[in-house]
């Protein structure tokens, strides 16, 4: 097998699996922080139970996120040695910041959150929860900066030997491209968090357990989910689209399945791109919308794929379908949550089982939308590993055979399968125990007692 393909498969598989867990930790961290804070402030017993419940779910996700994240950090060096050599001085800056300013914060304070022996949250636990949340969000931001730079390189120069030199770190960190991409990604994760909270709440209501807490979950989850489902489209999705139009026009053409350049380009809602005929089959068009979305002008000329050399095309079908899955789901999310919020404010939501079913069943779909978005972004960037500077084929490690990569890919697949099963088992168990069940359920016995002053 071509080593490049093996490396790409391995990277795609491991990073897509890793990302499943940050979605939930980034999305749930604000809920953990708010509930813990409230419980510490008011001393309310129910809120304290809720806080502990989400902390436990968060902790399982966090553990899985950490163990799948560490291989990512090594993989740049193991699989993409030439890429790392050339771009390390630049791309590793945000990675170093992520470790120093985000991972430490998250890990150190999670220790307090999980292992404090008091039952009721104190202000110390409340602050820890806030810092853990800050760490999760900051790590999302820094890693996206690295990715954004690969999509749209800024603040660099190229040395005679080909190494990429850092010229302006602020330009890298705060390029509008990176800021909008971060905003979109973090909103996508928070959206998933809202959907999870609402979905589990709906499950508790439908199964007639914990009606009181179920209502609180549905209420909070619906509001967060609704606001995010708006923000994910406008302004963040819209701005992402404009950035792609400006800086990665080939990706835009592939996303939209636009083969011929057109003035007043239409938006294809449905259709199958066919690269053997270089055309979109059985499309349904909405006239002029693409020109408006991309340039804010109904008559703007949008370049199609045929305007570019074939060697510069990303895999068109995958990019196109992934994009349509993401946008399609985004539209559905907005619709369903708009109705849910409407019902909520009319006090009807809890008596419409159909709506609760919808909220519960919608839970996995933000994951699909988020992963599909990444496929758009990363597959659509091909054939470049760093847009316009370095091709993916040039980036791989010269001294690692594809056999080794395949062997380790199979190893990762095996481990991740087991990890996935364990993860589901533990999360489903926590959900089955529920916030109130925690007291009675046989929590692992803790025969331990702290002596001395264990702190405040």
């Amino acid at each position, binding site marked *: 097998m071509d080593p490049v393909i093996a490396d790409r498969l391995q990277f795609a598989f491991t990073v897509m699996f890793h990302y499943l867990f940050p979605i939930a930790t980034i999305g749930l961290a604000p809920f953990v922080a708010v509930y813990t804070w409230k419980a510490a402030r008011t001393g309310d017993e129910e809120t304290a139970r809720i806080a502990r419940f989400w902390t436990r779910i968060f902790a399982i996700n966090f553990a899985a996120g950490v*163990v799948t994240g560490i291989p990512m950090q090594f993989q740049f060096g193991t699989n993409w040695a030439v890429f790392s050599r050339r771009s390390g001085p630049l791309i590793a800056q945000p990675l*170093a910041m992520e470790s*120093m300013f985000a991972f430490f914060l998250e*890990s150190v304070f999670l220790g307090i959150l999980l292992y404090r022996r008091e039952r009721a949250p104190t202000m110390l636990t409340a602050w820890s929860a806030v810092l853990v949340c800050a760490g999760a969000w900051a790590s999302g931001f820094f890693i996206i900066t690295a990715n954004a730079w690969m999509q749209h390189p800024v603040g660099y120069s190229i040395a005679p030997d080909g190494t990429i030199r850092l010229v302006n770190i602020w330009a890298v960190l705060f390029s509008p491209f990176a800021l909008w991409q971060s905003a979109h990604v973090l909103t996508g994760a928070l959206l998933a968090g809202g959907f999870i909270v609402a979905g589990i709440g709906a499950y508790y209501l439908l199964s007639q357990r914990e009606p009181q807490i179920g209502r609180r979950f549905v209420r909070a989850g619906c509001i967060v989910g609704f606001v995010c489902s708006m923000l994910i489209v406008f302004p963040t999705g819209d701005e992402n689209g404009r950035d792609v139009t400006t800086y990665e026009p080939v990706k835009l053409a592939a996303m939209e399945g636009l083969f011929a350049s057109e003035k007043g380009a239409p938006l294809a809602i449905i259709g199958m791109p066919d690269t053997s005929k270089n055309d979109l089959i059985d499309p349904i068009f909405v006239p002029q919308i693409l020109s408006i979305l991309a340039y804010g002008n109904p008559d703007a000329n949008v370049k199609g794929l045929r305007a570019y050399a074939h060697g510069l095309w990303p895999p068109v079908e995958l990019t196109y379908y992934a994009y349509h899955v993401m946008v399609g789901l985004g539209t559905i999310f907005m619709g369903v949550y708009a109705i849910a919020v409407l019902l909520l404010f009319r006090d009807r939501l809890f008596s419409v089982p159909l709506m609760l079913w919808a909220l519960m069943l919608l839970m996995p779909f933000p994951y699909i939308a988020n992963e599909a978005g990444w496929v758009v972004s990363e597959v659509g960037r091909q054939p470049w590993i760093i847009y316009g500077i370095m091709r993916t084929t040039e980036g791989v490690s010269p001294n690692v055979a594809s056999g080794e990569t395949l062997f*380790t890919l199979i190893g990762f697949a095996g*481990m991740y399968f087991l990890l996935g099963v364990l993860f589901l088992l533990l999360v489903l168990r926590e959900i089955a125990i529920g916030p109130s069940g925690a007291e009675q359920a046989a929590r*692992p016995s803790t*025969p331990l007692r702290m002596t001395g002053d264990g702190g405040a």
Partner: protein
Amino acid sequence: MSVAAFVVIAFMLTMYVLLDGYDLGVAAIAPLIGRTERERDAVLASIGPFWNGNEVWLVASVAALFALFPEVYASAFSGFYLPFVVALWLLMFRGLALELRRHLPSELWRQFWDAALSFSSALLIVTFGVALGNLLRGLPLNAAGYFQGTFDDLLNPYALLVAVFALVTLGQHGAAFVLMRVEGGPAALATRLLDRSWWVVLILYAGVTALTLVVHGLPARGGWLLVLPVLSLSALTALRVSLKQGRPGAAFTMSSVFLATLLVATAGTIYPYILPAFPPGRGGISIFAAAPSSLAVASALGVTILGSILVLLYSSVVWKRMAGKIRVE
């Protein structure tokens, strides 16, 4: 600047060994000092809140290496592809074992994860030991600076001896930590263990030091390095004295000092190479070769130094808050 970068990397890796070293050591010896399930719970609870934060020193060191010495990062990580991936799997397994063992109230579940935990932690220490041994001995590198050897080359007798030394030393470090944090049965067993392991550490220390001089020769500019064995031996002696006086906190500190002197000695020995070639004297990747632009180095140094200070500040607050002994009832 290159020297500063080298010092920062060495510092971060030393922090990693001191901190994650104790939780690796504790996990590796847990079956020896925790005879019953409750005792093991207590032993592992002592590292529970800290291990993840400790491990971030590794993640951060890797990121800093990537930023400061991309050549070395690329060459070492792709060169040792399989060993690194295996180390990764062990790290993953260990993290899972530590976190998951608490989640189901089943005895079998815990027995499985406890065994997995000790096994993967011990094997990780050995893997790191082999890596350290080969770093000291030098690596077969080709002209482009990529590793050019086989897996077997790495498992040479010298590196294996260093690995054994690492295992015993970190086991001792872990036992000292347990003594500081746990009361009751495990503490008594840890005391007995320390009593015996001390002699083993001493003998292995002498052997490894002598062999290093043989394999590597006395470093050209390294006269000051001769101070380090004196420091190491004093720390080791002080460790024993503190134990006899029943001062576990001091013993743990001395164990840390001992480890730190060893790591400083390692850094001093390979300097100015960050990836020395084998046989010694053939050069290697020097810290002065192909340094990235000064702005990149300055930025990464700023991030790591400022970051380290912040981390140490808030970590020490957390350590204080979470201090206190765990008692097995």
